[in-house]
């Protein structure tokens, strides 16, 4: 094999040379070190030629080798486009690495070679149907990345399909594809928004970040799409992956600014100020109003703040920053400071992170000094900091300076001035200047310090000091003539133009204070005028003019000389200035009018410059954005709107307590809106029985219409033809409307038999009409003995009502027992988290075993036992229902039995109604619902009587947290792409026969049987009660009494725990 391949290689090598042009042939047939003298071109050419041969060879390894080299070329930025035909042939390769490299190549060059790229499309279309989700996803990724406009319709179709894929990973990929398609063709916007709307409803944390990203890119203005998903996004946020968190938080920041009222009015002192100025006339009125209506934060606003707070602890700096900006823009003023500590923590991260964070802190610290003052020392400059970091820290320190800490800061600044980094030292001097102007107590100290710096040996330091001193002197010029004199003395040694210009300006401005020196300086300047920089020249002209006005006797000639020099200067600014000054100061007949005012024009008292931060107006940009960093509006920047004066309707965010996340938004169901909304209403108002009861029979007609669509929804994932068949069947069925219970059950019995005889795909729809269904079910319920409730219990009533309202949207099901019917009715109550219909089925087996909840000894005569009836919980579908039998073993009646405190506090328990009185020796059975949140953590609560409290706890076995579902074998196989845990065990002998295998499994876990076409493979399916994640169990019997148990589920923890339980059950029994 090995030798063959080398042969191959040499052949192809030769082949390459042969087919190459003369250059190749002439140089040397032993390729590799071909003509160094022939320049790069021939070598490159040759290389590519042999690549082509390799790509077209039959050997996989050669192809792979070639593709690796091609990728190397792409990475270096070399052009490898002429290989396109050879590469594209390998797109269907079995070798996954080769395939991936071909994808890399395609994505890079498809845009340039559109026609050839079309050759690969069919391969991707096929791969989109692959059972392996990774392959489906990567096919969609490449298909949507190749930017060939012709395939837009194909992309659109693929995206739509992938958006209802059962794998969340594929759905995530489809969210990414939305953005790609949109950037390729904006005409698809409306269709894409539909897909986004659907994906926004997805409750997988994997999808959330990506779909919000797509939303931001395609339709950031469609805030209305967010309303219904707002609370869900807030709640999911902690579990979304880091990058998604950033995107979601910034979207929610914008959302909140449009939906809630400002929380700042109460404590924002200056805010109120503004308002008063604004409404001057009706000031009274506004104040009255604010007093009458104290600010109440919208609970949704609070929810957002509460749920983002823990993310401040994230290791991802971008997440922390985005939470910080959210608090800055949304939180009440007194809560913003909780982000301080986390922002300061980010300063220990990489240099680039520090840079961005410091910029944001700089903006924040201007408005709110108090936030960062306690952390002042964190902004002390280290000698190892990069220059831009140092100047940002300076900026912040300057903003933080106040009367109390200024001495500390100045001491720190003194060290900085001595820094070897002169740019930084200059920045420090400016900072000192700012401190001096802001805090009047230290102005003199600073000025003296700066004067000392004038004797520094470094020129930049001196120059910067001069400039800053000039600004400071303008503020209080009276006392400082000696400083001006000192500077005049230094003038000869200073070469930095800005500093020279500053000194000259000072001389001119305060020439009356230094009457002797100023003319002398002018004299020197006249000599060196021609060799000065432009800004210095301008100031010389200025100085001359001012002196001419105040002391024309001494300086008249000098001034004229300078003006003459300026007249012929190369720079037009200087020529202009000279001309202007001459007209202004030298009296002549024509424009004497102006020269009268020359003194007032040139020597007017000038306002002192305000030294302020460069970050002063940065807050017009949202913090943490690119626009904020570069201080200009970046393209695609979305403005943060102002708070609305009146909050928009809050109820738009109300979501029905139990919203079917996935199933109803699928395929055709989009059209059955009216039916859905009536359903929704029902869910949310499940408490108001009376009203609903009345509607119950009346609404049958409208629901009739929806039924056909709901049944087709079931089979939506199957082939089209099947759907049609099914729906036609169902409509037939509904005409007949099997009112007799016997009939329906016999029908399904036969159905069941049919199934066993290898028609697993076929389903039947049983659809009783309103009234009949009602009776049927009622009859059954009352006929069944095991359902002995305390009939006064109000909840039983609720059940019936539920049944009435639900009956007409029955799903396809197969059942043989009445309780199964109820169960499938209840299916409607449960959120289906998957992309294709999962039907709950009845429990295969209900273990009789009951557990002690409260022993009569500890319960002072009250004893309680619980068991899991394995029925879907009526109160909330995420709960597991638990049946509790309470018995009074005392000789006196026990009063007011109810459930008290629970722990953990968040534990969601639906309690039974308080039992007013339990007679001695009597017992009562009640049902409660517990949301275990898919964990085996025990639910602890207190069982209370009138006098006592007993702490009890219910520890569920993992198998009790599941609800059985039915599905076809095909669906089962499709779903197998999830997390897998498996184990091989040796079976106990009695479990080896096929029949009882379902028994031990069902005992351990509440799973439903899935029909299997193989005798030795048994499949079971269920979903977790709380999150609705699918759990699939496969038991494969092998020879020598071993068996392979495989569990597939997204919940890997549950998977491994269930596996352990199953192992125990199957191995020993």
């Amino acid at each position: 094999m090995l030798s063959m391949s080398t042969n191959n290689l040499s052949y192809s090598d030769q082949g390459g040379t042969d087919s190459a042009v003369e250059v190749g042939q002439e140089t040397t047939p032993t390729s590799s070190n071909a003509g160094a003298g022939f320049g790069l071109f021939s070598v490159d050419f040759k290389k590519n030629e042999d690549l082509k041969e390799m790509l077209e060879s039959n050997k996989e390894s050669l192809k792979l080798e070639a593709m690796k080299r091609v990728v190397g070329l792409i990475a270096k930025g070399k052009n490898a486009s002429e290989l396109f035909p050879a590469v594209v042939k390998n797109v269907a390769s079995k070798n996954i690495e080769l395939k991936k490299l071909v994808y890399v190549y395609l994505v890079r060059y498809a845009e340039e070679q559109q026609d050839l790229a079309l050759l690969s499309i069919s391969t991707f279309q096929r791969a989109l149907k692959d059972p392996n989700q990774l392959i489906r996803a990567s096919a969609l990724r490449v298909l949507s990345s190749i930017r060939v406009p012709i395939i837009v319709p194909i992309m659109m179709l693929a995206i739509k399909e992938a958006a209802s894929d059962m794998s969340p990973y594929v759905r995530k990929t489809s969210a990414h594809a939305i953005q790609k398609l949109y950037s390729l063709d904006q005409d698809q916007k409306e269709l894409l928004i539909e897909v986004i709307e659907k994906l926004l409803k997805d409750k997988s944390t994997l999808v959330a970040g990506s779909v919000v990203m797509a939303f931001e890119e395609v339709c950031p203005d469609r805030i209305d799409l967010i309303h219904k998903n707002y609370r869900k996004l807030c709640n999911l946020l902690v579990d979304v992956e880091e990058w998604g968190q950033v995107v979601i938080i910034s979207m929610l920041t914008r959302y909140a600014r449009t939906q809630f009222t400002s929380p700042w009015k109460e404590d924002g002192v200056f805010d109120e100020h503004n308002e008063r100025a604004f409404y001057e006339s009706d000031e009274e009125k506004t104040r009255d109003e604010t007093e009458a209506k104290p600010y109440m934060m919208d609970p949704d606003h609070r929810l957002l703040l509460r749920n983002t707070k823990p993310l401040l602890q994230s290791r991802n700096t971008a997440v922390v920053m985005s939470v910080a900006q959210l608090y800055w823009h949304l939180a009440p003023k007194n809560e913003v400071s909780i982000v301080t500590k986390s922002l300061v923590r980010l300063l220990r991260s990489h240099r680039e992170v520090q840079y961005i964070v410091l910029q944001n802190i700089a903006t924040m610290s201007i408005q709110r000094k108090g936030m960062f003052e306690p952390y002042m020392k964190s902004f002390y400059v280290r000698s190892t900091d990069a220059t831009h970091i140092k100047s940002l820290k300076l900026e912040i320190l300057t903003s933080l300076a106040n009367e109390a800490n200024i001495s500390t800061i100045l001491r720190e600044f003194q060290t900085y001035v001595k820094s070897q980094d002169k740019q930084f030292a200059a920045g420090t001097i400016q900072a000192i200047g700012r401190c001096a102007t802001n805090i009047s107590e230290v102005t003199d100290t600073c000025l003296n310090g700066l004067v000392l710096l004038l004797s520094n040996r470094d020129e930049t330091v001196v120059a910067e000091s001069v400039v800053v001193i000039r600004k400071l002197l303008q503020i209080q010029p009276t006392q400082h003539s000696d400083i001006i004199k000192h500077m005049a003395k230094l003038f000869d040694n200073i070469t930095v133009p800005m500093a020279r210009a500053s000194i000259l300006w000072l001389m001119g401005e305060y020439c009356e204070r230094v009457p002797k020196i100023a003319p002398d300086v002018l004299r020197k300047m006249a000599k060196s005028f021609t060799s000065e920089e432009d800004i210095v020249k301008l100031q010389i002209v200025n100085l001359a003019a001012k002196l001419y006005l105040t002391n024309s006797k001494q300086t008249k000639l000098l001034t004229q000389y300078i003006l003459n020099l300026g007249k012929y200067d190369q720079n037009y600014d200087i020529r202009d200035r000279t001309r202007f000054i001459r007209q202004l100061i030298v009296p002549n007949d024509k424009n004497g009018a102006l020269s009268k005012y020359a003194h007032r024009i040139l020597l007017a008292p000038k306002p002192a410059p305000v030294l302020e931060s460069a970050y002063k107006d940065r807050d017009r940009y949202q913090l943490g954005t690119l626009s904020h960093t570069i201080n200009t509006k970046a393209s695609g920047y979305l403005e943060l709107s102002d708070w609305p004066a009146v909050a928009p309707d809050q109820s738009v965010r109300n979501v029905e307590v139990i919203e079917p996340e996935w199933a109803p938004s699928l395929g055709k169901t989009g059209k059955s809106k009216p039916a859905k909304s009536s359903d929704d209403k029902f869910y949310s108002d499940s408490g108001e029985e009376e009203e609903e009861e009345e509607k119950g029979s009346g609404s049958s007609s409208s629901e009739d219409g929806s039924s056909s669509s709901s049944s087709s929804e079931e089979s939506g994932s199957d082939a089209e033809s099947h759907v049609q068949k099914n729906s036609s069947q169902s409509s037939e069925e509904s005409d007949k409307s099997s009112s007799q219970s016997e009939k329906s059950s016999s029908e399904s019995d036969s159905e069941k038999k049919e199934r066993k005889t290898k028609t697993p795909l076929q389903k039947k729809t049983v659809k009783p009409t309103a009234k009949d269904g009602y009776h049927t079910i009622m009859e059954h319920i009352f006929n069944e003995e095991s359902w002995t409730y305390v009939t006064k219990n109000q909840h039983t009533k609720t059940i019936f009502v539920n049944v009435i309202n639900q009956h007409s949207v029955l799903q396809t099901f197969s059942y043989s027992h009445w309780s199964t019917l109820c169960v499938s009715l209840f299916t409607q109550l449960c959120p289906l988290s998957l992309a294709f219909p999962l039907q709950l089925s009845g429990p295969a087996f209900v273990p009789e075993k009951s557990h002690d909840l409260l022993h009569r000894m500890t319960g002072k005569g009250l004893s309680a036992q619980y068991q899991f009836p394995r029925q879907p919980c009526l109160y909330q579908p995420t709960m597991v229902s638990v049946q509790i039998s309470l018995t009074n073993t005392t000789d006196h009646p026990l009063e007011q039995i109810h459930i008290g405190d629970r722990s953990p506090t968040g534990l969601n328990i639906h309690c039974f109604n308080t039992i007013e009185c339990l007679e001695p020796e009597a017992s009562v059975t009640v049902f409660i619902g517990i949301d275990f949140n898919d964990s085996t953590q025990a639910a602890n609560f207190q069982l209370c009587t009138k006098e006592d409290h007993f702490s009890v706890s219910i520890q569920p076995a993992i198998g009790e947290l599941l609800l059985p579902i039915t599905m076809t074998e095909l669906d089962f196989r499709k779903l197998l792409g999830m997390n897998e845990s498996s184990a091989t065990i040796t079976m106990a002998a009695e479990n080896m026969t096929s029949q009882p295998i379902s028994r031990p499994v069902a005992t351990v876990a509440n799973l439903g049987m899935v029909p299997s076409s193989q005798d030795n493979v048994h499949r079971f399916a269920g979903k977790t009660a709380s999150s609705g994640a699918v759990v699939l169990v496969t038991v494969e019997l092998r020879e020598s009494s071993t068996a392979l148990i495989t569990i597939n589920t997204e919940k890997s923890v549950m998977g491994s725990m269930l596996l352990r339980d199953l192992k125990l059950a199957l191995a020993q029994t």
Partner: protein
Amino acid sequence: MQLPAKMIHSLFLVNSSGDIFLEKHWKSVVSRSVCDYFFEAQERASEPENVPPVIPTPHHYLISVLRHRIYFVAVIQSEVPPLFVIEFLHRVVDTFQDYFGVCTEAAIKDNVVVVYELLEEMLDNGFPLATESNILKELIKPPTILRTVVNTITGSTNVGEQLPTGQLSVVPWRRTGVKYTNNEAYFDVVEEIDAIIDKSGSTITAEIQGVIDACVKLTGMPDLTLSFMNPRLLDDVSFHPCVRFKRWEAERILSFIPPDGNFRLLSYHVSCQNLVAIPVYVKHNITFREGSSQGRFELTLGPKQTMGKGLEAVLISSQLPRGVLNTNLNPSQGTYNFDPVTKLLSWDVGKINPQKLPSLKGSMSLQAGASKPDENPTINIQFKIQQSALSDGDKILYLYLLYRIPTEVCICFQKGCVLLFLQWPNQ
């Protein structure tokens, strides 16, 4: 017409001499001439670190990070949080380091195919897809010599065929089906002190930061709980995503399903009101005489208040002024090195023996005619203290001190942590 696409558009890798040695585009190709703006900024900057991380150009924005003397330059077309890009680029570097051991130009060039495969998986359309190292390792196996050989013979590949199990689960950082014969978990507590000390030797600011790095090799899906003896000391913490926030908020207990292998569990900041004991001191005497081309250099180290624990692995480094041409120094122990180009002096002292204090003495030759440098150089000191009081496992207090000029240092190590295994299924 194409819209300016959000997120990361392209990535260029630039070495210290200003050559682009790798480019990758996630959307349409952006010409590498866009990097000219970067090179301009690079030229303007006096030091490599001074290149601004965000550079606006007429049509694009360049966001770069510098690690291992390589610039990772991301090209952005429109508004995106800059930290998002920066954080991502650092993750890319971390991943390369994880895969190749080092992140150098040579390593990247040698593994260009793996690099490309990685970048392809990490970003889809410019948006991060998989950045968790264990997911990536299931998709693309890190190159090893053995695997290269095996692949050549058997024709198998480095690329995984199944979707990594972590990708779908609620614990994306952990793969399922982990098996070990020996189940072990190590926790290293590493602490750093970051102090600024002024000329007179008084501490201006000192911060203590710590991290707990873990190496967990446990079978199945372990659920670990870690509690601290004194959680109040942990002032400000940041977690690996595996830690349950709410539990920490409520009970100050770390509860988590750990990733498989090495990871950083948390980093924290220690709140200490008063300044703490200082285990080491430095005596220095660095003088430059005016008008002479010689300078004197003298440095002595000594332990201080270490509670009987030895100082180990002491390493001194100092950036000498530009005017210094060369040094002629004599260490009493260890080795020293002076790089005349970068002017970086480093002295590997080793262990400090309290009986015989290490010192470094000698002269420096200065550039003739140059004026006397007016600032004393900064001295950085790194060292370790073995902290046996923390008991089982190797826990090292690693202290990193940052000095502005000389003298003293401070540290605190009064915290210990207790490991508790509360819940551990599959065992």
